[in-house]
């Protein structure tokens, strides 16, 4: 999703297909959903990523959904070892990865088994018959070969021996059999590029760069890519295989690139530290899906970034707080289980009032849960999950591109209010990519942070906890002459910060810490309505990565004449000052979330409104249709799904078939 455009682009559904969607002037679909599925060693994520890039370069809007197993190399050919990558692209604005695919590329029987049920009736399935041998069919629990037994009748099937064709194509380069077969994904990509009229040049450039040290591999991969492309162009195939051209989406002029959420967070943190005019210290510990941020920042050290791979999650945040104490912007990042470990240290940062940014790339929980799947179930943990009255601001990004702005906002609040701030993303936002209009840094508003250099108590000792009108204490770096002082996690006296746990002192300091965070509500944008009206019958309230499906569902419902609006909340804590009044102006409030109703509970608690839940915790994002059904239930005479729990969706990634049985 590039930008949020309200009603004006009503030209068709962005989720459309040959069957259900709108069409372009030339009869080609307005948007197409393609899913690449193969063994986790087949390079499907890479294939998907490169197809994404060429799609973006062709000027289409797009959204992607990578889905991969938790195992690094699950046993070959198994159902649970299938890795898939879905991309939805088209000639109008795209905000979701699409529900059901129009095209499925299945590199082996397991990939077919786990994904074909999702394919729209009449959709195209491309199959590598070279992998449909007895052993692989058994591993995928097929009793007969689906390519031959007629079970794929409701789809267009294009089956040929991609493995053999690839081996043939790379023969001149003298690779071993295993290495040669690794080029299969490039062959497939070549075919896909032909199908959708995509330029191969960026891929060729990329391969030359990637294999700069091994030109033979570069040439072999390029040969495979070209062979796949040529196959589409020259094969004596009529029927299902036909070339489709998707027009570019009209977008705002400017420079564009694709960006994943993890990249956006990294860039946003760097930009935020620069805007605060501070060096940044990033303490991290490897965890899926948050590690990508550490990987990225390691390469950005020229921006005053120090990275530290700590011995554990606790040390990562503690080192970041230590760096903040010493005058840098401390940042740490993790996912649910790691965030749980960091809880005590967050309390110390709240107590000592030091700036800190904590990025939580949420994943399915509790405990280890679903490491590679998405969920929004850390909202309670973010807002409430610490001992004591320990409020901190919480911001939630709604898309990969939005994560950039959110990271800057987190840096702003952390430094201006001397507080830890939690930024919520999730595995979907982190891994998915979308086109991003590259912003001009000159347009960012700087928020330089200064340190106390001279005593704030002439004639006496420095007062490290003397608050300003916003309740914010000064930041004092060790090394500053004359301002020596001690801070710590024990309750402290007003102004001096000396240990003091007298009843009135604890009451006053607890209130002061709470008031400071509450006051941030006056320093963040008022909540807007991103689609629809400021009052009416129904408002669908979302937060985080559910933006796409909610937005599309509300748009479709409005086209049908329903009085429904979409409000998407970025500032989860404190909530925008006008949110209660805004939500109160609708008759009904529906809150779709990938958890069991956490934000719904917060809204009920804060505003005493009858917020209704729509919940999904299958590790799959919402399908547009699921939210449409829930919306319809609020309007008379329209049968549909009521609010509550959404069933597992057979058409979505991760595939329900992929379970380990």
């Amino acid at each position, binding site marked *: 999703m590039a930008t949020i455009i309200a009603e004006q682009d009503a030209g068709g559904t962005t989720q459309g297909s040959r069957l259900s969607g709108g069409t372009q002037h030339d009869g080609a679909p307005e948007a197409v959903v393609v899913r690449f599925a193969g063994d986790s060693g087949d390079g499907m994520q890479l294939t998907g990523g490169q197809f994404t890039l060429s799609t973006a370069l062709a000027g289409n809007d797009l959204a992607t959904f990578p889905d991969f197993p938790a195992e690094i190399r699950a046993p070959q050919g198994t159902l649970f070892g299938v890795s898939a990558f879905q991309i939805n692209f088209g000639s109008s604005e795209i905000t979701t990865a699409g529900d059901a695919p129009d095209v499925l590329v299945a590199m082996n029987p397991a990939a077919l088994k786990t994904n074909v049920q999702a394919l729209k009736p009449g959709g195209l399935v491309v199959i590598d018959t070279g992998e449909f041998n007895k052993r692989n069919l058994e591993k995928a629990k097929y009793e007969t070969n689906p390519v031959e037994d007629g079970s794929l009748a409701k789809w267009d099937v294009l089956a040929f021996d991609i493995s053999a064709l690839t081996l043939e194509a790379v023969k001149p380069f003298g690779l071993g059999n295993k290495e040669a077969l690794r080029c299969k994904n490039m062959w497939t990509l070549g075919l896909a590029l032909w199908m959708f009229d995509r330029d191969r040049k960026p891929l060729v450039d990329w391969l030359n760069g990637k294999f700069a040290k091994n030109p033979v591999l570069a040439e072999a991969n390029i040969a495979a890519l070209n062979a796949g492309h040529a196959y589409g162009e020259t094969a004596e195939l009529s029927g299902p295989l036909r070339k489709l051209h998707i027009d570019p989406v009209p977008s705002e002029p400017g420079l564009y690139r694709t960006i994943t959420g993890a990249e956006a967070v990294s860039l946003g943190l*760097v930009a935020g530290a620069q805007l605060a005019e501070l060096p940044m210290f990033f303490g991290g510990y490897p965890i899926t899906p948050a590690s990508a941020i550490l990987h990225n920042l390691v390469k950005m050290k*020229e921006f005053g970034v120090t990275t530290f791979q700590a011995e554990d999650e606790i040390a990562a945040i503690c080192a970041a707080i230590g760096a903040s104490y010493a005058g840098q912007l401390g940042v740490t990042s993790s996912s649910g289980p790691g965030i749980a470990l960091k809880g005590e240290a967050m309390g110390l940062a709240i107590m000592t009032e030091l700036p800190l940014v904590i990025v939580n790339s949420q994943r399915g929980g509790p405990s280890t849960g679903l490491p590679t799947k998405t969920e929004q179930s850390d909202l309670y943990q973010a807002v409430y999950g610490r001992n004591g009255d320990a409020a901190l601001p919480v911001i939630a990004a709604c898309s990969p591109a939005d994560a950039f702005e959110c990271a800057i906002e987190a840096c702003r609040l952390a430094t201006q209010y001397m507080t830890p701030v939690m930024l919520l993303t999730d595995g979907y936002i982190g891994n998915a990519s979308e086109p991003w209009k590259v912003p001009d840094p000159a347009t960012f508003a700087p928020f330089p942070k200064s340190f106390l250099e001279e005593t704030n108590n002439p004639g006496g000792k420095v007062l490290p906890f003397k608050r300003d009108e916003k309740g914010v204490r000064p930041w004092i770096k060790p090394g500053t002459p004359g301002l020596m002082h001690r801070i710590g996690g024990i309750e402290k006296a007003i102004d001096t910060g000396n240990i003091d746990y007298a009843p009135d002192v604890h009451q006053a300091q607890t209130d002061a810490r709470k008031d400071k965070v509450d006051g941030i509500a006056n320093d963040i944008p008022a909540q807007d309505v991103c689609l629809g009206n400021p009052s009416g019958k129904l408002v669908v309230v979302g937060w985080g990565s559910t933006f796409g499906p909610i937005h599309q569902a509300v748009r479709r419902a409005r086209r049908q004449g329903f009085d429904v609006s979409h409000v998407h909340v970025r500032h989860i804590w404190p909530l925008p000052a006008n949110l209660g009044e805004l939500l109160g102006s609708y008759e009904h409030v529906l809150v779709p979330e990938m958890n069991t109703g956490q934000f719904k509970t917060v809204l009920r608690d804060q505003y005493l409104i009858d917020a209704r839940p729509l919940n999904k915790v299958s590790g799959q994002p919402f399908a547009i249709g699921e939210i449409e059904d829930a919306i319809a239930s609020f309007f008379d005479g329209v049968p549909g799904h009521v609010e509550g729990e959404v069933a597992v969706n057979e058409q979505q990634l991760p595939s329900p078939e992929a379970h380990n049985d």
Partner: protein
Amino acid sequence: MNDMTPITTTLKDWETDQEVRWCPGCGDYAILKAVQRTLPMVGADPKNTVFVSGIGCSSRFPYYVESYGFHTIHGRAPAFATGIKLANPDLDVWLVTGDGDGMSIGGNHTMHILRRNLDCQIMLFNNEIYGLTKGQYSPTSRVGTSSPTSPIGSVDRPALPCAFALGAGARFVARGYDVSKDLPEVLIAAHKHKGAAFIEIFQNCIVYNKDRFDDFTQKAVAADNQIMLKHGEPLLFSKGTKGLSLDLETLSLKVVDVVDGDWQAAGVALHNVRNRGLAHMLVELPFGPFPMALGVIYDDPAPTFESAVVAERASLIAGKTADLGKLLAKGQTWTVEPEASHGLMD
């Protein structure tokens, strides 16, 4: 330690206006005084000095030293210190921890700060008991220690902090005790050492583990039961009448008698602070058959963590400029022209 120009201070300059809240008679008072006596001797500058502590009796220490101080959370002081030192390598960082804080809940961090060799002084106050939580046995308590959680005596075997430190890769290991007149000398050596300097300080918990170290700290027995190590000098104790010699058959230390001061004839070994093998033997000596080894056991500097991080960063950023606009536009980009609807390759 750091490379700042030494400045002149007195013990008084290092005292805060805060009331010291340890139990009367606690060994911590003596350690605090020893540190406050040491700081002027090493030319420390209050504005560049940071005391970092975890949680426990010992960890109240920073409040009583007139410098910068951070009283953090249980066991994690090494991690905070790492962030502080990486953010500003010029700071002179002292860690204060205890046997529960540093060896139990924070054992992991103690290991990693030592193996990384962050330049700092780590003072582990070992009183072999949890004091602040009212007397439970600790990871250094001897087997049989009676406590509220071990009414008929603790059954788990204790850890040896100095052996742990060496095992973790420490390049400086020393021992002292609270009321020892030699403690400042040990602290000066620790401060002089560039890298992580680990000092185990036996400390008398007057309330929950009283007089636990009397066997070697009391005047009457000190000469016979402690050996004060000096680099380059023979390993002698009992007023020079006994020494430690290497038993070549067992490759271990043994106690030998020294007649008429002729330690060479008795085969007494010389202490060498750069001999890691000897250090391992000294920290493992069972007390009783052997005296308690005190002083600087091992001191062999290696490159520090923060200097390695600074150097790594310098090499990563060499020739790069921090241009945010360029960074944001990195990778493969395309331009959408105002008029055209087609994207173009950049």
